């Protein structure tokens, strides 16, 4: 695949969103109380758009991805609305949701080897996936569809009868992506799709993901902890902290003008080729059974004000486009008197970390 990179206008998507999440919440019940892993998340995803979801481990980004798919473990509770092309998929019956997955919604996982059946040939994987949703297709048609998808992902047709163990790590991840896309779903969640891969293979996979919208017209939620991948493969980004999206906007603008102190800290802590000094975020993410009052980031925030410790920040329009939840960005008329004074922080221990 070596088609020239087309710079599509970013942020201008007049069409109806493919996915529209409204106040999505996911709880896990534990003996200590409910873990509020996702706690009121809203976002829209336009056709062909890629949204990067970043945050530290345990911020709820994987739970959100699975929650959107309806793939939560028993004992998890989901609330809020997930609209797929206007239909609420969170209140669908199990059977209807099962029908949607694979055909309309798909997921790409981190460890390809644990998701492929070692006893099945590539051809059988495709036959199983396609037959599930299009039982009328003949074997030859299945083969044709599968080979076409494999070709776009860069797997030669000669490998159609191979077993998963005959593939290298990068080829397996390509196979996973091809399996997820063979039915041309409109929405894909990719959960850390490159984390287990080497840097060169990672770059190849990022390029394939980048080409998805052109080759398949797919909208994607790309979950990653690597902000470099967001910069390369996404149109918009959402920064998640302790179960909430604290800032979202176009990738270019968020990287250039991060408004939320957490976004700033996250971008600064990344070690890149241009790193000349080490920066890190002091402290650890909060316990989601009993998160701090007010803004959940305030105990670690270098810019915290008095209001941050007592009042939940309001979700407002972000200057430069997108949404933000941070008192530093306002609204000023809702901050009580004296609320803008710097907050006296308790000291954080060196080893208090994630």
């Amino acid at each position, binding site marked *: 695949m*070596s088609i*020239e*990179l087309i710079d599509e206008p970013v942020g201008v998507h007049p069409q109806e969103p493919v996915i529209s999440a409204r106040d999505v919440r996911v709880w896990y019940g534990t003996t200590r109380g409910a873990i509020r892993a996702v706690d009121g998340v809203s976002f829209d995803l336009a056709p062909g758009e890629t949204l990067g979801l970043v945050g*530290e*481990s345990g911020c709820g980004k994987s739970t959100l991805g699975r929650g959107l798919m309806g793939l939560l473990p028993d004992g998890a509770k989901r609330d809020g609305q997930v609209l797929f092309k206007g239909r609420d998929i969170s209140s669908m019956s199990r059977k209807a949701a099962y029908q949607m997955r694979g055909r309309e919604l798909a997921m790409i996982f981190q460890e390809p080897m644990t998701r492929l059946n070692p006893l099945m040939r590539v051809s059988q994987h495709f036959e199983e996936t396609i037959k599930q949703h299009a039982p009328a297709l003949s074997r030859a048609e299945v083969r044709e569809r599968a*080979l*076409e998808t*494999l*070709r776009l992902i*860069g*797997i*030669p*047709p*000669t*490998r159609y009868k191979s077993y998963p163990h005959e593939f290298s*790590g*990068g*080829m397996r991840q390509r196979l996973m992506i091809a399996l997820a896309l063979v039915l041309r779903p409109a929405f894909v969640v990719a959960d850390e799709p490159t984390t287990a891969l*080497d*840097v*060169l*293979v*990672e*770059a*190849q996979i*990022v*390029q394939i993901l*980048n080409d998805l919208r052109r080759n398949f017209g797919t909208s994607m939620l790309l979950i990653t*902890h*690597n*902000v*470099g*991948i*967001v*910069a*390369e*493969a996404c149109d918009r980004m959402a920064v998640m902290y302790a179960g909430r999206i604290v800032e979202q906007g176009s990738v*270019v603008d968020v*990287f250039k003008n991060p408004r939320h102190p957490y976004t700033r800290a*996250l*971008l600064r*802590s*990344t*070690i*890149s*080729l*241009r*790193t*000349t*000094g*080490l*920066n*890190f*975020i002091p402290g*650890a993410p909060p316990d989601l059974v009993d998160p701090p009052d007010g803004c959940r980031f305030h105990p670690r925030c270098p810019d915290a004000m008095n209001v941050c410790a007592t009042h939940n920040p309001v979700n407002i329009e972000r200057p430069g486009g997108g949404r933000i939840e941070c008192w530093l960005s306002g609204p000023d008329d809702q901050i009580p008197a004296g609320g803008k004074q710097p907050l006296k922080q308790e000291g954080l*221990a*060196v*080893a208090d*970390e*994630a």
Partner: protein
Amino acid sequence: MPTKPEPQAWQDPLIDVRDLSVHFELRGGILARLFGSDTGTVKAVDGVTLTVGRGEVVGLVGESGSGKSTLGRALLGLVPATDGSILFHGDDVAEMSRRRLRAIRRDIQMVFQDPNAALNPAMTVEEATGDALRVHGMKSAAERRARVVEALEKVGLSPVELFLSKYPRDLSGGQKQRVVLARAIILDPEVLVADEPISMLDMSVRAKILQLMLDLKQELGLTYVYITHDLASAKYFCDRIAIMYLGRVVEIGPTDEIFANPRHPYTRALLKAIPEPDPERALPRDLLRGEIPDAASPPLGCSFHPRCPEAFEKCGWESRDLRAVIEEHWTRQPADVYGAESDTVGDLAHLDTPATVARIGGKGAESAREILHRMRSERPDEPFWRGVDRVDDDGPGIRVVFHPGEDPALRSSDGVEVACLLYPESS
């Protein structure tokens, strides 16, 4: 924020690795073992020469399968050397008895990648950290505790009383890696071999642990061998970097020089592939193809040539490369063209036996030639074609003859050493 320490001279070699090889014999089935037939050898480390100076940070950088971890383990005698020597204080680690090795591991310690796997879940922080003291003969519990407290303080796990009786499951990833570091420094080692010490950690913690390692080095006068696939952290952390590929060092030199002026095409490709957190930088479209090959049957000539964008006739082209370009060609063809062409070319499996002459076709030489011609005109810049010497008719098919290849040795080139035929010995 602290800046990068000045690179130190490595005139005073602490570890001196000479022509080190670590080979693993592959075991075949029971019949193969009975009759002693050859089932192959994996050359995990294949003739590496490397010195590590006192107080230096040397980075071993490469993809998985490059042999960097095996080399690191060999430094502690954790894998047996097949050939060559590892001199530490003038003694050869590769030749040592188990007892001498145990003694040497007081001075060379290892930090592993996954803190979850490196810590015994049934041991408290105190037991885990102090276990090495017990193994090395410190009998007094009070003495051990004093040393444990001291080590935990050094790695920032204070107040220490809060951590002593905790189990790994009570700790965060960063805290676990601190315990692993405390355990590594408790015997006052000279050298720490750190195998991907930060790659399992959250992005926000990586910088903290890297900073801790720099502080420990300063405070305890440590020497590091830093094994990683992450060039960005290596750039910040290392004084010198060795780029490894399939068991060999392909480029080695001072960090600044390697990054300012990368010579080996592999180093250049690695640098290009790092995702930079800058959305305005366009994604490079000319990424390296393929993956690191199987070390049990490495490519002929230069191991890197099948992926190298700059390879030329002498790089060791062979039959497996022909299979790769044909298959790559088919990923660009519609189904009917693929069907027709694969009929003409025939089975490709025999090309997997490395040879400098490759036969394909079976339905007439002309039709096979035609396919090669089509492939070539479609991708004229493909380096593979530089390696083709001539194409002869061969019965019902054709015979592709490649130029003889050469295996590049590590040669010095303006302050660095590089193993690539593009850089002949500088005089």
